[in-house]
């Protein structure tokens, strides 16, 4: 990896959660068992859209081994959930709106009995017309899915005068881009155990990306105070946004309280597909005009997002897409209109990239088509329109100045030329029946939840009685390597050893409020928290050392294993070990520093959700198209990323490569197909994600760590950025290989085959 990092020495560092993960010793929350534990199962709707005439659970209750059955009647508090607003019923009463809607839940001695009991619950439905497309939902007179109609959210932005801009344009490209419903496909399906505790309390052991949010939502549903609910949420077998919203927790909790026993629910893959969130499918119609010299003059965009049956984070995702409509480019005249539309097609929600992937595919597609029409090199065309460091953000707001766009574009341009040389060297690349092409794309991606959204962050540092520097954060470990990030930053700041520290995350009883582990914010917020806490913590530690030893504070500093004398650093041992220092923690004396603050937002953010900190990425890919079948294979991928200093090189690279592969799947094969409201691919036999054969054997990640002069915001997260610009790069590469423009994902080999079908003039022999 081309990574020129100041933190190189940590390269060989082993993740704190590593040993447990490679030995199988670590317990995921779905691995837990408790005495007297029951197994829960959730009855989901068989209809995508229907009125519920009746639900009868009598037979199920009588089945031996069944310990509890719950329906809407058993929800003590609010029968609804949703991160933004709670429009999704926990247990449906009179209507179902998608096939994942829950009607009842059963706890039984075994999973088999619980499953049989589900079969004994009789539900009578009165079918309603299925709204299986946004077009249908928007028809006048369409049945209303929610009291306020079928439009969940509208968002827009405009500046200048687009019609004017088009008038002055020399070329105009108009195109509709169609992007699919992608499944998170985390390997661990949703699950966990909910344990009733004495005094009406409960502990919820289940993955989530925001423990405190779950606690808040569960409190509302169960009608018990938040302080009586404890959420333990790490480790998780992947999430990618998909486990941020509640999933099995309310059912487990209702059953556990009803049966007064711990209840485990672990969804099967089919259940997960049916109930789980997906990435929003969108249809994006774009008209873009540019002048003769390649300056973009006008950009008019209409986004229609299929948000499915309930809101969850749908509105915020649409806002994000609207914000990123122009990406890293300066466009004087713009008009964007976005609609997030309810349908009976599952539920779409948070997913790594948060609307950015969809809109970037459309934007970069336009850039490619315009460049081609203008006969300008497509990277050069991007450079011509690229933002400069101090330009305002995409919604006109002030943002932290950054040269990231230029940096990543330059990095990829260099490698593009290198690759061209390589291509020329290898003579035999043009083997028969294969067409090859290279493509590139860039993106700009906001971090944090954005302006006008509650986005608190924080953390706590304390010195424990057993001599450990303990860091506590309310973040979750979903695999992204957060523990490693925290450890690395602690070791850096305090120059101590990994045995000197202990880290607590993912347990609402033990950690301070830190906000969600989403929106590429956790790494960044850990760093910010520690910046705010480190000085105070350090001086308290040294003060304590002074108290214990009588040595003046100014002669001491923190170091490996304990407190060191500044002038005696060479003498192999600490002056006062942390353990000895801890014994000075007598009686009421303690060291604990806590911070809470908000994620930085633009001082003049007028549009909800607009960002202040952005990261950038450029991607270059090589593809090989089989002209006999139209199949595309990505043979090379390189990403240049500008997201500030690298905290953990292994984690950084892993995020970019993993994101790249996930986006490759999005581009070439992943499509959660819903027909008339029913999922057609319900497991990994038909919903295919990339295997080791589908990704380039070697992917390259280049980190541009440089920040703009005076930038004090440190590392940005890279959880999402690696997924954003891959699809348009592949589409461009396919065009270069075959002359076939791609405006629909996943790329259809059928379409390519039609285009290339026995290329004119070519002969079989």
């Amino acid at each position, binding site marked *: 990896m081309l990574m020129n990092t100041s933190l190189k020495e940590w390269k060989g560092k082993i993740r704190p959660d590593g040993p447990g993960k490679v030995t199988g010793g670590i317990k995921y929350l779905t691995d837990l068992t408790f005495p007297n534990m029951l197994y829960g199962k959730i009855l989901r709707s068989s209809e995508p859209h229907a009125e519920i005439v009746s639900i009868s659970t009598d037979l199920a209750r009588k089945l031996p081994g069944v310990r509890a059955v719950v329906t809407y009647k058993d929800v003590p508090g609010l029968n609804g959930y949703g991160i933004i607003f709670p429009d999704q019923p926990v247990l449906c009463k009179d209507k179902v709106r998608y096939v994942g809607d829950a009607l009842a839940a059963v706890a039984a001695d075994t999973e088999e009995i619980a499953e049989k009991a589900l079969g004994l619950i009789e539900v009578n439905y009165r079918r309603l017309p299925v709204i299986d497309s946004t077009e249908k939902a928007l028809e006048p007179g369409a049945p209303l899915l929610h009291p306020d109609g079928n439009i969940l959210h509208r968002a827009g932005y405009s500046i200048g005068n687009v019609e004017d801009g088009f008038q002055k344009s020399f070329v105009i490209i108009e195109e509709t881009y169609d992007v699919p419903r992608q499944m998170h496909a985390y390997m661990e399906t949703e699950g966990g155990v909910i344990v009733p505790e004495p005094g009406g309390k409960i502990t919820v052991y289940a993955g989530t990306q925001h423990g405190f949010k779950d606690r808040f939502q569960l409190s509302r549903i169960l009608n018990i105070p938040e302080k009586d609910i404890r959420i333990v949420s790490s480790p998780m077998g992947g999430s990618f946004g998909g486990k941020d919203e509640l999933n099995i927790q309310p059912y487990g909790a209702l059953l556990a309280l009803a049966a007064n026993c711990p209840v485990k629910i672990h969804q099967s893959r089919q259940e997960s597909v049916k109930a789980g969130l997906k990435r929003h499918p969108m249809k994006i119609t774009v008209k873009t005009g540019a002048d003769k010299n390649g300056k973009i003059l006008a950009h008019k965009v209409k986004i229609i997002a299929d948000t499915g049956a309930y809101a969850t984070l749908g509105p915020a995702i649409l806002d994000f897409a609207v914000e990123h409509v122009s990406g890293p480019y300066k466009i004087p005249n713009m008009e964007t209109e976005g609609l997030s539309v309810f349908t009976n097609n599952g539920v779409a929600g948070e997913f790594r990239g948060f609307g950015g992937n969809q809109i970037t595919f459309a934007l970069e597609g336009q850039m490619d088509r315009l460049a081609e029409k203008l006969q300008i090199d497509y990277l050069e065309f991007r450079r011509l329109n690229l933002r400069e460091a101090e330009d305002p953000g995409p919604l006109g707001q002030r943002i932290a100045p950054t040269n990231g766009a230029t940096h990543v574009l330059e990095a990829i341009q260099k490698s593009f030329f290198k690759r061209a040389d390589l291509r020329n060297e290898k003579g035999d690349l043009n083997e028969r029946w294969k067409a090859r092409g290279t493509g590139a794309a860039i993106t700009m991606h906001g971090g944090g939840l954005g302006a006008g959204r509650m986005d608190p962050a924080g953390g706590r540092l304390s010195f424990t009685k057993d001599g450990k520097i303990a860091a506590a954060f309310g973040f979750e470990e979903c695999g992204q390597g957060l523990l490693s990030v925290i450890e690395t930053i602690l070791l850096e700041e305090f120059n101590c050893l990994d045995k000197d520290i202990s880290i607590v995350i993912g347990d609402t009883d033990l950690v301070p409020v830190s906000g969600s582990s989403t929106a590429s914010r956790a790494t960044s917020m850990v760093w910010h928290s520690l910046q705010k806490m480190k000085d105070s913590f350090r001086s308290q530690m040294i003060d304590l050392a002074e108290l214990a030893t009588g040595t003046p504070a100014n002669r001491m500093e923190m170091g490996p294993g304990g407190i060191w004398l500044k002038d005696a650093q060479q003498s192999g041992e600490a002056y006062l070990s942390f353990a000895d220092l801890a014994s000075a923690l007598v009686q009421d004396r303690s060291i604990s520093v806590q911070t809470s603050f908000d994620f930085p937002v633009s001082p003049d953010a007028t549009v909800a959700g607009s960002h202040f900190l952005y990261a950038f990425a450029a991607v270059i890919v090589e593809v090989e198209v089989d002209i006999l079948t139209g199949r595309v294979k990505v043979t090379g991928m390189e990403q240049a990323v500008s997201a500030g200093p690298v905290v953990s090189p292994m984690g950084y690279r*892993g995020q970019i490569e993993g994101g790249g592969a996930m986006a490759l799947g999005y581009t070439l094969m992943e499509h959660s197909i819903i027909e008339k409201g029913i999922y057609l691919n319900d497991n990994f036999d038909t919903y295919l994600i990339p295997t*080791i054969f589908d990704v380039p054997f070697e992917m390259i990640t280049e980190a541009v760590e440089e920040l703009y002069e005076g930038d004090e915001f440190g590392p940005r997260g890279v959880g999402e950025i690696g997924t954003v610009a891959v699809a348009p790069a592949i589409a461009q590469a396919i065009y270069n290989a075959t002359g076939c423009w791609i405006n629909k994902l996943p790329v259809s080999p059928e379409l390519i085959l039609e285009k290339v079908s026995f290329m004119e003039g070519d002969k079989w022999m």
Partner: protein
Amino acid sequence: MDVKKVIMATPSPQPVKIELELEVNGFHRQLTVAPAARLVDLLREDLELTGTKFSCEVGRCGTCAVHMDNKLVNSCLVMAYQANGTSICTIEGLAERSLDPIQSAFLEEGGFQCGYCTPGMIMAVKALLNYHANPTEEQIKEGLSGNLCRCTGYGGIIRAVQRAIKNLNENEIEGAVGWKK
């Protein structure tokens, strides 16, 4: 009729059970289970070996992979009667006194993120390297093609495999030197 039948076939209201004998991670085990019960449940529930995961339950992801008589199998597709008399090795059985070189390589190279595919992946790598000490790129891909990983994009896994090959070969050379002495 001289037919061995594992259990009584006459319809009986009692759940059908067999006495299963097998070796798991070197220990002899005896269990009374349904003949068609899945090995993955047997391992996770009856033997509390939760290192073996599941994700698709139809042989499509590899998170449940274990070795049965030294061969890689999906424990979600092995029924109890098929495991009778066999020797099973799970992720928990890999590390003896110290980590297996493959496990170390996964740690050193970042061959995992969420870690949920990791036990199955490591068992697949182990099977691969048992078979080919110096696998080609194609052999590596084929050996791991049944194990899905959603987090890493396989980059870290591939580097871990390469590192494991190196580690193992070095061990071998050291071993050889020791033997000469």
